[in-house]
Structures are given as C-alpha cells and as structure tokens.
C-alpha cells in the first residue's frame, strides 16, 4: 500500500529515503568503519526508543495537532514499569511480566488525560501536551524521589544482550511494533480518521465523524507507543528514572518532520517516520564516527529540520504560516 504509507508528490515522497541513502554513502566513504553490521546494530539500538516515540507522535501530527508530552509520559511509564516489575519479583520469569501490559496501560492513560485536557478544555494541543509533559516529569520525580530504579533482570535485559541476525532482540521487537502501527494507520477506521481530521477537520465533522473522540483516541494511542519507547529505553540502560524521558521530544519531532510528515497534518505516515528516525540516528552516529564534538551534532540537527521542511513540503499552498 505505497499510497497509504507515503502521501504527497512523487519526488517529495521519496526525498527522505534518498537523503538517507546519500547519508549512508557519504559516511561510508569518509570512514569505511561506518558501513559494518556492528555499526548498523549500534544505530539500530540507539534508534529503537526514539522510533517508538516518534511513531506515536506521528499519529498526532497526521491529525494536525502536536504532542509534546512524550518526555513526561516516558518518564512516568518507565518509573511505573520498574516499580511494579521490582515489586512483583523483579524478573520476567515470575509475575514480573505483568508490569509490561501495566506499562502500556499507563502510557494510554497518560495520553488519554492529555487528549481529554486538549479536547475537553479546548486548549491548543501544543500547550496542553507541553503542560501535561511537565506534570508527568513531576509525577515521576515524586514516585522515585529522584532515585534511579535498577532493572537488572537478565531475561528483560536480553532485549539488548541477545542478538539475532546481528541485531539485538529489541530491534526486532520494535520492527513488529512498527508493523502494528502501520496496520493501524492503513487498515483501521481510526487510522483513516486521523488523515481525515488532518486533511479537513470541518469536512470530517460534516461527514458525521466524531472528531473529538478521534482526537482523544489519537493521544491515547500515542501514549501506548510512548510506553513501548519507555520499555526499550529501560531495557537499553537497565535503569528507570525521570531522566529516562529526556531528549525524546526534540529527537522525535525532528525525525517525524525530516521523514516528510507535514506539521499541518493530513499526510505522511509511520514509514516516513522510520526513515526520519534513521536519518537522525545515522547523522548522529556518522558524526561520532567522524569524531565531531557533541555541540556540532546538535547544531546540525537543528539545521536539518529546517532543510527537511523546505525540501519535503509544499508550502506554496499555505496562505499563512503561524
């Protein structure tokens, strides 16, 4: 279903993928070590949590809204997961596995609250989600008292330590979750409704859609993906704390935009976001391989967003940009 995954003109549709290929070629020429399975696995690991989070936020952006609550949501999910996990014995082998669905439910609940605040109180999604993100960070700090919770169950950590085809398990699991997201996007009424709301909210309303319900459902769904991101982030570091959520906001929004999903909604999709996340992580990884300092990387990422918006979107049709 290429036309469901990528919407927009042909060149614009493929531009992000071409950029990704060009970047890989470029870094490989600068440093041949870049082009190795080991390095790709490294990119895969670093890309997995942001991919989950960006996929969740993609649905929101397709609706023409924005969600900035991910850092708080991830922190809450990570801390709740670790607390329940440790309380139930601290291993997936025992009752600890119950912490996994609990974490996803907590994510959905976080999103539900953000969505309800946005829709119910008629607060712009930007402001509602940003505020709820801070609430989440505060909540997670309150739960941990600022401490770290160590999650050292070898079975859970096998997401990182066990490899299959050269990549850790978490990369494979994340790919399955991505397929699930694609299924929602292309094969369910909810996914179609996201595009309808983003493409023409008035019209969607005039076609009898309950736009408010779609919006709230979108935020709740995004929350589930944030929870997946939190799980992978905890598996990666073996630690759950408030700081688990840090930095995901900029990276995920950047990835979505770089991947070609328009910020005003109605176009793009989860495959775009996959490409976007890979572009961002390839650049980060490539600059490390090249030996550039951290601050250069941040600057490059910022510029990248602007370039991506210029290249990948048709701005002529916009009368006003707010």
């Amino acid at each position, binding site marked *: 279903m290429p*036309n469901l995954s990528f*919407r927009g003109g042909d060149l614009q549709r493929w531009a992000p993928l071409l950029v990704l290929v060009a970047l890989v070629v470029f870094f490989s020429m600068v440093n041949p070590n870049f082009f190795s399975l080991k390095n790709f696995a490294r990119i895969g690991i670093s890309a997995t949590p942001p991919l989950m989070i960006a996929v969740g936020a993609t649905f929101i952006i397709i609706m023409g809204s924005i969600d900035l609550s991910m850092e708080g949501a991830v922190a809450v999910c990570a801390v709740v997961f670790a607390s329940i996990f440790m309380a139930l014995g601290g291993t997936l082998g025992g009752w600890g596995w119950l912490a996994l669905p609990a974490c996803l439910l907590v994510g959905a609940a976080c999103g539900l609250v953000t969505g309800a605040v946005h829709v119910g109180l008629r607060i712009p999604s930007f402001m509602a989600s940003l505020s709820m993100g801070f609430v989440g960070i505060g909540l997670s700090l309150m739960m941990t008292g600022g401490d770290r919770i160590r999650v050292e169950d070898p079975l859970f950590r096998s997401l990182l330590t066990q490899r299959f085809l050269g990549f850790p398990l978490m990369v494979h699991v994340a790919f399955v979750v991505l397929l699930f997201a694609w299924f929602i996007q*292309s*094969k*369910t*009424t*909810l996914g*179609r*409704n996201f*595009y*309808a709301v*983003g*493409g*023409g909210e*008035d*019209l*969607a*309303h*005039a*076609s*009898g*859609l*309950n736009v408010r319900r779609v919006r709230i459902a979108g935020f709740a769904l995004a929350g589930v993906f944030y929870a997946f991101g939190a799980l992978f982030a905890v598996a990666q570091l073996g630690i759950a704390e408030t700081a688990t959520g840090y930095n995901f906001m900029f990276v995920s929004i950047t990835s979505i935009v770089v991947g070609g999903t328009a910020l005003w909604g*109605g*176009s793009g999709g989860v495959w775009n976001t996959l490409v976007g996340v890979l572009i961002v992580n390839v650049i980060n990884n490539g600059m490390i391989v090249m030996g550039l300092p951290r601050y250069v990387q941040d600057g490059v990422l910022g510029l990248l967003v602007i370039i991506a918006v210029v290249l990948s979107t048709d701005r002529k049709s916009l009368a006003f940009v707010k």
Partner: protein
Amino acid sequence: MFELRKVEKRFPNVRALKAIDFEIRQGEIVGLVGENGAGKSTLMKVIYGAYQHDGGEVLKDGIPVRFENPRQAMQKGIGMVFQEQSLIPNLSVMENIFLGFEQQFVKLGVVNWKKMAAAARFQLAKVKLDIDPRIITAKLSFAQRQLVELAKVLTLEERVDGDLVILLDEPTSVLAKEEVELLFKLVRELRSRAAFIFVSHRLDEVLELTDRVYVMKDGEVVDHVVSAEASAESIQRKMVGRDINKEYYREEKQLPYDASRVLVELRNATVPGQYSNVSFQLHAGEVLTLVGTEGSGREAILRTIFGLQKLVLGDLAVKGRKVESFSAEASVASGVGYIPRERKVEGIVAGMNVYENITLSQMGNYSRFGFLRIGDEKATAKDWIAKLSIKASSEMADCGNLSGGNQQKVVLAKWRSGGSDIILLDHPTRGLDIGAKEDVYEMVRAMNADGAGIVLIADTLEEAIGLSHTILVVKDGAIQKRFDCSAGTKPSLFDLVHYMI
C-alpha cells in the same frame, strides 16, 4: 471621471466580464445590480484592484490606469467598503482606520497614539460617528463598524489628489431599517467628497439611493437606466430575462413525489437572528428549494437539518422521529447527507483518494471491530466511478487533482453509496461548466427516482424553478411564499423575485 471601456476579464474556461462599459461622474451615486454569478463581484474587484483586467481600458480622469493591487487603486482614490466586514476585530478603531498607513504617526520607530487618535476622530466625524477611537473594534455594533469602514475609506481624501470613488458592497444587508436610512442620508451628504458605486440585492434601495443603475447578467452590462425613470420590475426582467430550456433541467424526468412519505418536517422552527417560524415538509422523491438572497436564512435552515445548528424553538423531525440532540453524527446516521458549497474546503479531503473520500461518512459499513475492509471500499468506489462516470484515473487517484465536476460527483457518491436518502445540496453547480451541471441535474432526478428527498439551495433562479417540486421563498429569516413547481405548473422568475426583494 472614472471610466471602464470594453473591459474584459477571463478566467480559465470562463469569460467573466465581456466588454464592460461603465462610467461614473463626480458626486454621482451609481447602482450595480445583477443575480449571483452575473459578474458584479468580478467587476468590483477589477475596479478596486484585486483583479487586473485583461482587455479594454480603465481610465481615471481620462488617463489609462492599471492597478496591480488594491493599494495602488487606493492611491488613485478608489476605495472599497466590504460586505463581509474587513475590520480586524481585536485592534482598536483607530488602528483599523490607519491599518497599513501608520507611518504618518511614527517618529523614530515610535507610534504617536495621541496624534493617531486625533486623526481618527477627524475621520469619524466625517461619518458622524461619535465614539472613542481607542475602543476595540469588536465592541462596536455592525452598523457602527460599517461606518468605521466608510471612515477608513474616506481617509483617502487627505491622502490622494483628485476625486474619490467608493464602492459599497451590500452595505445594508446587516443593517436595521433606521440604520439604512441613516447610512443613505450620510452617503447623500458625502457626495460632495466622493462618488459612490452601490451594489445591492435590494432593488428598492438601489432605486431610492442612486442616480443611475447598471444591470449585469452573464458578465455583460445588459442595461443602463436612470433611476428616477426605472421601475423595479423592469430591472428584474433585465436581470433574469432568459428563456428557460426545459430539457436542460431534465424536466421531462420530473416525477410527482410521494406525499405519504415525509422525510423531514420542521414545525415553527426558530433560531433567533437566523430564521423564525419556519415550517415545511420534505417528501420522498421531492426537490424542495429554498430561494432567497444571501443571508436570508436559507443556509441556516440547511445547517439545522444537518444537525450543525440547534433549534431554539420548534421541532425538527427526521423520518417521523423528533430530533433531540443536534449533531452531524446523528444526522448522518439517520440518512442525511450534506453537500456544501465550497467543495475544496468542505466537500472532499484533498489529500485523500477517491475511495477514501467516498467511504469517509460510512466507515462503519466497511469495517469490522475497527478494521477496514479496503477491498470492499475499492469495489464500491469502482462501482460509483462507473455509475456516475467520474473521470478519475482510478479509485486510488487523489481527489484534490480532480476537476470541480468530478469532485462534486465523488461527494454525491459518498452520500448515495452510504444510503443517505435526505440530501442537502448547497449550490451544487457553482463553478461547474455546463456539461458538469447537466450531470448534476441528471443525478438529482436519479436520486428522486430512488425515493430520496432533496433540499436545494440553487445557484440561479432558473435552476431552482427547473429542478424543484416545491419552492419556498425565504426573506429575512421567514418563509414569504410557497410555490408549487410540479412539471407544467412552474412559476415564472418574476413571481419569485417579487417575494425575494
């Protein structure tokens, strides 16, 4: 002093203005009338610089001019008072008056508000409006805003050399009777300062205020009369006078409706400020047309039936069941389909393809537990593409790239395929070429034959008469007159116009 000679304006596929001759002398008040779509607004836009003519000449004081934008027209003394009020509501009155021309009050980058307020007061005095220019515009009444707009245009007096021409576009449509009289008195007094072009649907007002009247139809000036010698009837005849081609509206296919099956019933429906005491029944197989000028309340009635606007008094019953909670969702579920006027904005989602648009209102029929059956969706879309001969490369084509007529067909397919049998059509043929219009008429008849009832707001009066079984003339939010339009007993245009204006 301002003259148009053989002015032409073309758009893709349409010759909007055909060799327009128009003249206005100093201190004169000239009327401009015509039906919707006659070319009035295009002509006005050429005059105030929003459009550029592409044939003929525009002369100001005998010198050919060409305005690239409204600001250039203003610099030549031509200003426009807009129908839909063009003041920015969150700014103060004085800021609105001098919007874009604040430079005269700025010294070293700082605005001298006192000076601006004094200047604004001077302008407001010209229109006899005694308000504080610092007040926020949103707090003014409609009539006051209209005067502020006029004051804004009158600032040209100080700014440009030569005489002013001021266009008034439907200035009375939102005013009460006393306010209209005040406005007319003011305009007459201002003749010493400017010439006026007065555009209105209300012929009695046009004849009362103006010296001469230009009558437009189909992009041409068909007549030009001196107001004192003209009658409203003769002007009406010129505005609409054209033979109605019965075949064009598929009158031979107009069947009697089924009076025993009432689809929609309104009883004493009232929404304050929009319409009051509206009662009618829509039957299966009937086309019921609401005729009236813009803002007469006909759109609001449609919106109520579709559930977008709640009734304050009275009842709405759909298929015998009284509507308690007004929502688009509930209306769609009970079989109401709405085809709005702005297809690009409200009719289709441009980024979505044909089958996605067609099933948008009825995804429940194409899904189980929230999972879509895309194969079925595509089959339905293919079916309707063939049935309505929609010109699209396939059911996967992006609707935004289809022509207006084909977009309209997609919208119709959306409602028809979902089994809607109460169809609300708001200007379904606006902007379509003749062939596409005929397709729409054909579809209207086909829907009737299937037992659907249609509430129509027509683009022209001929269309209303040609398509309808019943016409209700709406004026100022009330039904003035009901006409039976069964084939063979159709009323004439003049019968209708008489009750409209």
